[in-house]
């Protein structure tokens, strides 16, 4: 397993490199550039800006210098858009924010979604199942950009319990609404996935055997059915977790949390090349890492899988 992990990490290096090159090319090919502005800048001013950020260099040199800075100095360069900050600063400030609300949303989604799915499957076609399915379908059809304003209307405008937005250093009252708004639809997906996977497992031979020998239902579910039923759920959780902790544009925009999801979109709209690249690499690296963790978890859950 160790050899396998090392191999996977080594493979990640060329993958990230390709990600950098392709993203850089796509970005440069898009119309407009970091010097685009409402006011057309004089040629000499544009030349100065391009020289400062190395954009006057040939494309291969730009990419080479970028990779060199990232690899040797772990320096993602200065932000083209937010001129007082480096991309490292922006990630250092924004990533803990998204990590906090993303991880909490993830915990919420799993903690509610999995039990909901299990209960629905075990009590298939009872009122509990209908309630769970109804709830998760309801949550699924309410995407976070619909959910967020509804939550604000209820908890801020009507009840006056919670602030409508802001981060405030991650104060609990500021966390509640973003966490629920982000977590709900994921929770619904997890519940539905768990339910269908659980149903399939419950109908398989080894569960029938366990039940035939008179094992109590609770034991059957927890000891035998749950683990294999979680396999498809786990393969969904890996990328979902990365998606959640790397920020949600909707959450950042709506709740003004100051997370990197908002930074990425702003960077893309303003052709802030360095910020786009920095956050893209971060997301890419995390995706590779969590996919690896998911694969390793597989081996732990399913004894048939060996690396």
């Amino acid at each position: 397993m160790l050899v396998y992990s090392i191999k996977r990490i080594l493979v990640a290096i060329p993958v990230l490199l390709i990600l950098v090159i392709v993203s850089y090319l796509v970005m440069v090919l898009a119309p407009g550039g970091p010097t685009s502005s409402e006011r057309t800048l004089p040629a000499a001013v544009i030349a100065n800006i391009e020289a400062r950020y190395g954009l006057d260099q040939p494309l291969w040199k730009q990419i080479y210098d970028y990779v060199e800075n990232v690899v040797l100095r772990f320096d993602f360069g200065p932000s083209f858009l937010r001129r007082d900050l480096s991309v490292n600063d922006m990630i250092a400030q924004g990533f803990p924010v998204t990590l906090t609300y993303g991880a909490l949303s993830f915990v919420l989604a799993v903690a509610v979604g999995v039990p909901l799915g299990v209960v629905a499957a075990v009590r298939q076609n009872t009122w509990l199942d209908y309630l769970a399915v109804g709830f998760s379908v309801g949550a699924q059809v309410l995407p976070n950009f619909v959910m967020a304003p509804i939550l604000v209307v209820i908890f801020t405008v009507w009840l006056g319990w919670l602030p409508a937005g802001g981060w405030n250093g991650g104060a609990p009252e500021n966390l509640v609404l973003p966490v629920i708004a982000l977590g709900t639809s994921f929770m619904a997906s997890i519940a539905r996935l768990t339910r269908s996977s659980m149903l399939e497992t419950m109908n398989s031979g080894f569960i029938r055997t366990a039940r035939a020998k008179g094992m109590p239902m609770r034991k059957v579910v927890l000891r035998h059915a749950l683990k294999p039923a979680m396999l498809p759920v786990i393969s969904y959780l890996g990328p979902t977790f990365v998606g959640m902790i790397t920020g949600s544009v909707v959450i950042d925009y709506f709740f003004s949390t100051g997370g990197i999801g908002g930074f990425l979109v702003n960077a893309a709209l303003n052709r802030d090349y360095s910020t786009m690249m920095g956050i893209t690499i971060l997301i890419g690296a995390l995706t590779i890492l969590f996919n690896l963790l998911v694969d390793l978890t597989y081996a732990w859950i399913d004894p048939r899988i060996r690396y």
Partner: protein
Amino acid sequence: MIRTATGTLAALLLSTAAFAQDATNPETGEPLAEDQSFTYRMLDDWKSIDPQLVEETAGNHAVRQLFEGLYNSAPDGTIEPGVALSHEVSDDGLTYTFTLRDDARWSDGEPVTAQDFVYGIQRAVDPELASNYSWYIELATVEGATEAIAGEIDPSEIGVRAIDDTTLEITLEEALPYFPQMVTYSTFFPARQDVIEEHGADWVRPGNIVGNGAYVLTDYRVGERWSAEKSDTYWNADDVIIDEVTGLIINDPNQALTRYFDGEVDMTEPLPAGQFPELKEEYPDQAHSIPRLCSYYYAFNQSESGPEALKDPNVRRALSLAVDRSVITDQILQGGQTPAYTFAHQDTANFEMPVLPDAQMTQAERDAEAQRLWEEAGSPDLTLDLIYNTSDQHEQIATIVSQMWKQKLGVDTDLSNYEWSTYLDVRGGQNFDISRSAWCADYNEASSFLDLMTSNNENNDGKYANPRVDELIDASRTAENPQEIYTEVEEILNEDTAIIPIYHYSLAFMLDEDVKGWPFENAENNWYARDLYRVAGE
């Protein structure tokens, strides 16, 4: 918990004790509230608060609190002394000598000297800093600025020098009568060489930053908030009542309004589209709409790549007359915007609005005239490509205008929307027939608009060209009474239908009724927290 409560109580007692001595506004005698903090909503984070790099509204609002230039923007839109008390102009109008106050201090207690201004202005044109706004020094025609930006001469060679600590001399290449207005913008602000050299780009961080404004930056969370506390070293600190300024970034306008009513922010602008009339009715003391020095217009592509028909002034004029501006201002925007027939905003300082026939007619008369002109032009069979950047409001306006053209003139319009950077690229490359555009004044003077209509202006995206306009604008730079010339230029623009002016901006906002001292007359929306105060609520 208990500790926090005790701490808060102690702080409260302390502030109350300090406050009890002076609880009324010394000028107006109004009773002041205990809490003298001011929080406002920001639409987005700033790009920079380095005075020489600042290029947009969000950064400017902050920089006006943290730094001070030679002159400030007065509440009525004119200028008033800042660090400079007065200035003298040489007979040829090229050399400005500013006398600085000797009691101006940086936030670390050091005196603000003429040398700090010299450093700031030189820094602005330094290719190494590569400021997007270096052109502003060039626009002011500071001697040698163009060459310094192009790297042909050293920034230290430009026409700025400190005669002594309190005397600053700036030499221009053209005798701009509105130069004193221009120095209210932050590119001309002073900067501390030692601080910038010590911290590099990090000098604007809380803790590092040294400013000379009424407030000192204490906190900045990118994408979320910033705050500043009153500076004890500001020369006029005794008259400053607001002791803390906070900006909260709230992208969504409805969320901003919710947080305003929740008491989190004292001021929010702009308001969600179309909500102003209702808010004004319900909260007459809190909802305001004031002029804002920007104009919304449609540019015709009159370059070689544009359609032949648009080179005919009659066609352009017919298209312009057929646009019923009042439908756009009164039914779509509803925020106090005014229908426009001139490019320069009607509330630009000293601007004498020309009496234009188009503005005098009723819409029915305009429509009839449009149809007559259209027939005279041979009723060209046209399909116009109208471009705009993605936004609900631009789309609504484009849709309604295209309907007006279709109904009144039979013109077909293709609406093309692009995301911001792509739109700039398409517009800058003249790949359009008609383009939605807007322009905001850099300083409160009509030339800040009208310069755009000269044939070699980089921002003249429609490539309108009239040698007479070029001549007049050139002459206005040294004219004794440039206002007459501006009026004439507007008349020519109208005659040529150089563009379709659509509306003059307004700024609709909500302001807590306890916050007083707001500069409602300032069409540039230049507010200073040091002029505000909070009265005790009833």
